[in-house]
């Protein structure tokens, strides 16, 4: 299994869920920009499940050396890489912030996934799971830089799914709504609309097993986003969302 964004609590919960369900991998490749946190996780799954793993540094804000990934092979890729950055109010006109959001969520990430997609394609098997976001379903004034990068990522995953279908590789797009994770700690989230990483992992694992195409972590988000997508633009632009 290949994990991009290994410090993500959702990614870690997914790995644990899969292992709990009895899945075993020759090796789990933990890609990360934070070695310390990832080492803790690597030891943890070794103690808990006797699962071997290998940590590989990946910093999307830096030059990427693909040769380091040569030996990485698997039939499952889980991508949880993401960066929220500052919202529009604090960060819109800060170009560094904007670039970083776009790089990590889309522009620098896509070539990395493509690199592995090619390996999957040539083996004619496997699943790619990508965490996108409900923020990508429609641009809203509060965080549309992040939202637009996620929208691009959603479109990429959808196209990739279409492209790889004939090649027997499946692509699953996951759209978590509010999540109780490090990213959102301290924000006033409505508990009824907020899932924890464990819940997310269960939902994603199910969707993975059923070969679903797109899944919202909490079903309610499917409904909310359908409504939000369908509000006419002349009304939408006046809303404070």
């Amino acid at each position, binding site marked *: 299994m290949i994990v991009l964004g290994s410090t993500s609590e959702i990614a870690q919960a997914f790995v644990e869920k899969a292992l709990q369900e009895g899945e075993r991998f020759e090796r789990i490749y933990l890609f990360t920009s934070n070695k310390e946190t990832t080492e*803790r996780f690597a*030891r943890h799954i070794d*103690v808990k499940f006797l699962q071997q793993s290998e940590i590989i540094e990946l910093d999307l804000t830096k030059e990427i050396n693909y040769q380091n990934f040569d030996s990485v092979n698997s039939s499952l890729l889980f991508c949880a890489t993401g960066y929220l950055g500052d919202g529009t109010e604090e960060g819109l006109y800060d170009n560094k912030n904007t670039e970083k959001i776009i790089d990590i969520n889309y522009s620098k990430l896509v070539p990395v996934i493509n690199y592995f997609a090619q390996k999957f394609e040539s083996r004619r098997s496997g699943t790619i799971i990508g965490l996108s976001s409900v923020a990508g379903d429609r641009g809203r004034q509060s965080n549309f830089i992040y939202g637009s990068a996620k929208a691009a990522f959603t479109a990429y995953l959808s196209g990739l799914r279409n492209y790889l279908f004939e090649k027997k590789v499946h692509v699953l797009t996951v759209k978590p709504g509010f999540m109780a994770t*490090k990213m959102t*700690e*301290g924000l006033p989230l409505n508990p009824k609309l907020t899932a924890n990483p464990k819940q997310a992992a269960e939902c994603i694992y199910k969707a993975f097993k059923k070969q679903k195409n797109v899944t919202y972590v909490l079903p309610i988000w499917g409904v909310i986003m359908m409504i939000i997508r369908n509000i006419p633009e002349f009304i939408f632009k006046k809303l404070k969302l």
Partner: protein
Amino acid sequence: MKPNFTQKVTNWGNFPIVEKEMRSEDSFKKIKEFVLSHNEVIARGNGRCYGDASLGENIFSSKKLNKFISFDRINGIIECESGVLLSEVLEISVPQGYFLYVTPGTKFISIGGAIASDVHGKNHHSEGCFSEYVTEFKLMTENGDVITCSREHNTDKFWSTIGGMGLTGIILSAKFKLKNIETAYIRQESIKADNLDEIFRLFEESESWTYTVAWIDCLQKGQNIGRSILMRGEHAFRHELAENEAKSPLVLKKKFSPTVPFYFPNFVLNALTVKLFNFLYYKKQSKKEIKNFVDYETFFYPLDFVNDWNKIYGKSGFIQYQMVIPKETGKEGMKRILETIANSGNGSFLAVLKLFGENNTDAYNSFPFEGYTLALDFKVNSKLKQLVDQLDHIVQEFGGRIYLTKDSMSRSSLTDYLKNVNSSKFVSLQHKRILNNK
């Protein structure tokens, strides 16, 4: 939106409820920043202490310190971060033939909480407290330094932290020994006792059993005072089990656990329902003595079967009153306590009696000492403070004391027994309350 870490926080008894800052971090560097940037900090595990022990101005939650570090499967020594729950340890250790040496009546507590309260179980008389099996732990002190404490290194901090209620620093990780088991089952005997004399005799007769505990019907009066059921148990050997269980003796079937969906309204739990519960509980066992085999969850954690059961006590919450009274006068003291409760009409759903063995004198901040301990749940209502005061009076008279991890309103003369924990940085609401009431 800027994050705001202030939130409503409360422990298992839902009393008191406070609005304070609570943060969780998983890197030592960030934890250090948190410690250094606040005047008053207290650690919190899973909030299973009942009262105000893990509440403070700025709460550090160990929730994210949730990783295992190592497991020596040959010698049964495990190391994990302090936020790991006992339930998570059991999940991996039981299938490997290892059990916790000491466990409280719930498995949903953290390792940090187990050390800070130096928890005891049904085997205190035979195997002591949790700390007996802790070989070392890492502690973050006031200036953010991380020190390793054991019986050989930083001995002072090792012993003051054990039972020290978080007042010496933040426990980051710990290493502890596990005990070998052949099966996940317990050979159990339950014996009915008609009154206090009988239950005390049963306790003393059962001293050779590893686990003993009794459930008391605490609404009985006169002749029937102390009516109870004693339970004693031993880890079962494989050859003792029925064929079905013996096939995979370390694996339990998955069970359904219901959740209490909301706070029960106030009228649900009144003197009458408590009486009925205790009556039924006692009558459920029609025979004088039952011998059987039960899985470890049923034996150690009967209450964990229902998630969020604390909600049945309603929004105003409840307290647990746990005291220990020296053995010599234990019977007399318990009698006075039970009489007082019966007369107050303020019934307790749950009343657990246990005989503690000798204490480890090195672990000077641990609550247990040789004697009888009783733990009772009471719903918070307008009459409770008065009852607690009456009970405190008796405990004081008999030279007993109160378990800090369950305390939220007892008099400070019964809870002010910690030593070497004076820090201006690590301060809990409980500690302040105790110092202010002195």
